[in-house]
């Protein structure tokens, strides 16, 4: 396993944009979008808890959603973010996750009402084109494959479903995977292979691939001591980051059969080994981890209300990398930070959302000399 990395002496933590003071009146909870000192109150119908932000591939659109069961799609217009639409007719219960399709025209929303809605974007409007049913209870996560024609959902019913969509927007279930023994919290696709990863309350991460018309579990990553909440692949897809209730982030690396490091593989499936554990940095559960596809920086969302950013030391051994904490923003929110997401087009732009009902945007600058 990798060594613990402490912030290097002489590095100033990254500069952060000044965060504006809370503008809402005491006691009132309003969902607000804010950037650089400006707070935008949400339209009526308050959203008490912001659970997730997702950026589409062009970086322009952001969707966030709330416990109230609504979804809000916000669009960038210059320096400010405006809520363009509220989708309140799709679900009967909490909307837990949203995901933009790779082409940017579709939005998938996973809900505690056991369904997943697919919305098609029509200028500023969204229309629900399909509702995917089948899970027995709360759907926890949804993710589009980079190819755009596969979708994965996971649920508290311990299963992961893989769906295929054709040119006529028809969705078909391709596989139901019952590998986990507990609630599945998160699914994510590999950036360039048809490989699916899932994280669960059973403390493991599982990987799946297609084999003869069906999907099978090809690897189980054990090591976390508690629920694994979220996953993120690095830009190359060779490494996977997982964050957990055990307050650590683990970095796993893929070793294909016949690798030069001599890591044993069974059959033709690659082996995954934990090459680094980041522990001692977070004081509470880590709910989300995001790996920037542009810069390789790793951001975490923590139950201690803070956001942290880690960067890999350029001189470290690829088989045993060390990551340094390059930014730590305590009290980024006034409650648990649930989700962080990097903008795929603008370097250093990070969005976060929290139980305090707010979505915040941050500008991260790498420390000098990195």
């Amino acid at each position: 396993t990798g060594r613990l990395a402490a912030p290097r002496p002489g590095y100033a933590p990254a500069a952060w944009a000044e965060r504006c003071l809370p503008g809402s009146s005491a006691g009132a909870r309003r969902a607000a979008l804010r950037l650089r000192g400006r707070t935008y109150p949400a339209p009526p119908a308050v959203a008490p808890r912001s659970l997730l932000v997702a950026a589409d591939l062009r970086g322009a659109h952001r969707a966030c959603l709330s416990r109230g069961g609504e979804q809000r799609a916000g669009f960038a217009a210059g320096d400010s973010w405006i809520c363009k639409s509220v989708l309140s007719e799709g679900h009967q219960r909490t909307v837990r996750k949203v995901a933009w399709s790779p082409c940017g025209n579709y939005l998938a929303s996973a809900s505690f009402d056991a369904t997943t809605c697919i919305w098609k974007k029509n200028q500023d409007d969204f229309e629900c084109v399909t509702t995917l049913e089948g899970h027995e209870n709360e759907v926890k996560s949804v993710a589009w494959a980079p190819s755009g024609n596969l979708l994965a959902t996971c649920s508290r019913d311990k299963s992961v479903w893989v769906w295929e969509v054709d040119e006529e927007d028809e969705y078909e279930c391709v596989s139901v995977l019952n590998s986990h023994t507990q609630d599945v919290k998160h699914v994510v696709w590999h950036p360039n292979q048809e490989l699916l990863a899932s994280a669960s309350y059973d403390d493991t991460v599982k990987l799946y691939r297609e084999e003869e018309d069906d999907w099978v579990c090809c690897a189980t990553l054990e090591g976390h001591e508690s629920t694994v909440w979220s996953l993120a692949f690095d830009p190359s897809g060779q490494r996977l980051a997982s964050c957990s209730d055990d307050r650590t982030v683990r970095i796993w690396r893929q070793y294909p059969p016949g690798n030069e490091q001599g890591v044993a593989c069974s059959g033709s499936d690659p082996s995954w080994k934990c090459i680094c554990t980041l522990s001692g940095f977070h004081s509470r559960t880590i709910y989300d981890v995001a790996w920037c596809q542009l810069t390789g920086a790793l951001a975490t969302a923590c139950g201690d209300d803070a956001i942290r950013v880690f960067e890999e030391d350029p001189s470290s051994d690829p088989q045993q990398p060390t990551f340094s904490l390059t930014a730590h923003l305590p009290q980024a929110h006034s409650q648990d930070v649930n989700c962080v997401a990097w903008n795929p087009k603008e370097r250093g732009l990070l969005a976060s959302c929290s139980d305090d009902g707010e979505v915040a945007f941050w500008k991260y600058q790498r420390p000098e000399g990195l």
Partner: protein
Amino acid sequence: MAGSQDMFDAIVMADERFHGEGYQEGYEEGSTLGIIEGRQHGTLHGAKIGSEIGCYQGFAFAWRCLLHNCAAEKDSKKMKVLESLIGLIEKFPYDDPTYDKLHEDLDRIRGKFKQLCSLLNVQPDFKISVERSGLSF
């Protein structure tokens, strides 16, 4: 003289001897009862699994007949999954409770059944018996 030593031996060791004999008798009786209880438990559990798979098999056969005459392209995918489910059920080793992949295969069968229901647009909510509602095994 040797005879009287044996006799004292028998008296002195009597306590331990009775203890040992009692333990043996108890152990044998416990084993017998354990086997009976185990068999009952196994029968129940096995019946549950059998009942569940039997249900899936009946469902699959019925749908195979229904879809038999359909030549639509869409239905070919359904037939494929259907045949796959039937194949999994037929391959399952019903007479080997020590099969090491028992639960893995069972989960595969359940997953295949759920996928089939999704493709056929059928809700798996059968009433097995009067007392139980829904599909619970």
